[in-house]
């Protein structure tokens, strides 16, 4: 069996697909549609998809979580390793091809969303999941109070472990809604629908079946905060920038799809809101945060050490 790791001394990942461990490597510029076509041949999929037409690299540059992170966690918890090309050109393996590891410093999690300051990924190792047989999905609508009660009920229930996505959608000038989706095994769809309907009754919201949540491409930027605080930020974003936001209710991550560009003052405002809770603003349309004085020396030293390799 292919171990997935080169024996030439470099210890780089070599292409592999391990159906038993449900782990496989893919070039960083593979689209999620291509990943899932390959995985589907083995009855598997990679659930953290925001835009099937976008590549793995683009996803990881745009967001730390996807809608299915409600059930499966952030990208860092679903990619155990990668091949990394250092800024000076050499390639090195970072992370492992097994999911559970505490061997050495966790450079993988540190580098995964670090942009291109220290180099760039060339291959990713993905943790795949079995394809379920059925999908239970729908949309809740109602006033802010009803939806807030509903959100609390969903997040407090152990059903939340089994719901793939719980997205609070805020449209500029429009009504708010909560989208839910659960990939479930055959025969369980009705149980999920019953649960969603019960939550709607108890919260005063209205639940309607819908085939699946809409895709809207990758977000312009994301804001990481606590689940409750994220909603306040999402509303500010929609009000200030137009467009809409999809807030991953369990992960506290706002995926922003604005109509207008964000100016420096609003970016600084968002950063102050997020950072007060230990969060941040991140994504393809925002400049990386300026390092604070304490970390400038650490970053410079890392760049220096790794550039000499």
């Amino acid at each position, binding site marked *: 069996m292919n*171990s997935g*790791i080169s*024996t030439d001394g*470099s210890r780089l990942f070599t292409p592999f697909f391990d159906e*038993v*461990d*449900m782990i496989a490597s893919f070039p960083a510029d593979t689209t999620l549609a291509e990943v899932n076509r390959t995985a589907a041949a083995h009855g598997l999929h990679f659930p953290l998809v925001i835009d099937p037409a976008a590549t793995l690299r683009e996803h990881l540059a745009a967001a730390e979580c996807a809608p299915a992170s409600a059930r499966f*966690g952030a990208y*860092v*918890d679903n990619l155990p390793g990668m091949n990394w090309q*250092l800024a000076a050109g050499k390639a*090195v*393996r*970072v992370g*492992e091809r*097994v*999911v*559970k*590891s*505490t*061997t*050495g*410093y*966790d*450079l993988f*999690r*540190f580098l995964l969303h670090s942009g291109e300051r220290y180099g760039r990924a060339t291959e990713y190792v993905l943790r795949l999941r079995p394809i379920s047989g059925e999908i239970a999905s729908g949309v809740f609508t109602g006033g802010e109070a009803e939806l807030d009660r509903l959100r609390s009920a969903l997040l407090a229930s*152990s*059903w*939340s*472990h*089994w719901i793939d996505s719980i997205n609070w959608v805020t449209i500029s000038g429009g009504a708010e809604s909560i989208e839910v989706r659960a990939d479930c095994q055959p*025969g*369980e769809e009705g*149980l999920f629908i019953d649960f969603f309907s019960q939550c709607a009754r108890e919260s005063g919201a209205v639940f309607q079946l819908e085939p699946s949540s809409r895709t809207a491409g990758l977000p312009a930027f994301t804001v*990481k905060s*606590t689940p409750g*605080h994220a909603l306040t930020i999402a509303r500010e974003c929609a009000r200030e920038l137009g467009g809409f936001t999809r807030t991953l209710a*369990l992960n*506290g991550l706002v995926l922003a799809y604005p109509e207008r560009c964000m100016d420096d003052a609003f970016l600084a405002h968002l950063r102050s809101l*997020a*950072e007060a*809770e*230990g*969060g*941040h603003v*991140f994504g393809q349309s925002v400049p*990386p*945060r*300026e*390092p*604070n004085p*304490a*970390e400038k020396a*650490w970053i410079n*030293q*890392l760049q220096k*050490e*790794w550039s000499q*390799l």
Partner: protein
Amino acid sequence: MPKTQGLDPASLASLGRAMPRGRLLSAASEVAAYSSDGLGYKHFTPDAVAIPASAEEVVQLVRRLRELKIPYVARGAGTSLSGGPVAAQGGLVIHLSKLKAITEINAAEGYAVVESGAVLNHLDEALKPYGLYYPPDPSTGPVCTLGGNVASNSGGVHCFRYGVTSNYVLGAEVVLMDGTVARFGGPAGGRGGWSEDWKRLFVGSEGTLGIFTRFWLRLIPRPEKVWTFRATYRDLEQASEAIRRLARHPAYPAAIEFMDPRCVDMVENSPMKVGLPKGSFMILTEIDGPAALVDGRVESVAQTLRDCGSADVAFSCEEKERLGLWKARKAQGGLIGQVSPDFIVQDFVIPKARLGEVLHFIYEQADAAKVAAVTIMHAGDGNLHPNFLFDLRKEGDLERVEKIGKNLMKKVSEVGGTLSGEHGIGNDKSAYVAAHFGPLGQAMQMAVPLLFNPANQLNPLKVFPERSFAA
């Protein structure tokens, strides 16, 4: 690397001024208890032990130690199995057991704030009334501290579905070696006011980069109902097939555990016997979730276990019966300590498809060295714990076991595994790290302590043997 020269009276007096009376221990009888961890057989007696009661006292100590150029190491309950929280070059142990407060449980936002010396199971007890759950569950839960858990990225039996400690650390407060206090992340679990996600380097750093004083930990709803299943198999092929099918089962088990026949026989030959067929492989699995959902999955899981060849599948959702199903698995750790004067619990992760090959390798090595070995495994994750039993008093016993460990680590790297899944490297496996990472990977790793602990004054000789401290 020899110990430093010990603490001179002036240094001891200086440290004493940083600590309230009675919380700096230096008598041989007082520091002896800190000379080893759960690894047991390697002893490194510290020169002194300080017991701070607040982050501010940790800061004062660290500043004083910087001036005095004394090596030091932070320690929680000392349950590490890798030789991590010991004073490998002498100096000071900073015992964090007084930083034990659970300062906030925020049910609405799903996080807890705890001090680093808080005991894991105390957190679990505190969360129960809220219906909340912190999943990492190493077997030392009744005594181990969250600081130790975060330092070694601890796991446990329910990692397969719920993940390990790093999946739950939203933020960490760290006393850096210059005495500044850094907060990486926070309730939101992001970067906070930093441009990089530094907490990722600190989680699992085995106490080599700074001293944890506080954490923000992610909480999830407590599972409403749990079903436990136990089955035995006559051969490894059947047991391996059960592991594979369970790992892909849509009920998505929280735990998939494995005991090899040597471990089963050890239990069945003891007063803790539970009636498992001798010579069998035991699989234990758990599913959980809302009752309406999980109850409907029970028969499918049981049938999967039967389809793989088990004729004795037992399962229950009743607490007393579930504990009975777990009994053999839970008893094995204590039994090893009863049947052998000394033992080493190995910890590594392999691709599951290589289980047969690696298990055979363990038997081959152990039998050739005439060393008893019993193996358990967090099978969903491919995380094996072979236990090698020996007697330190017998000449050559330790050397034989260490040689097996060396050969085994080489094998683990060859099959695409990793040297530690949840115990850490400590000073037990540091000799094998360079070969595992390769020259370039190793050089990248070594850049990290240069940022935060360039002279290796904090926890020297751990993880990488090159990390020695020269005063």
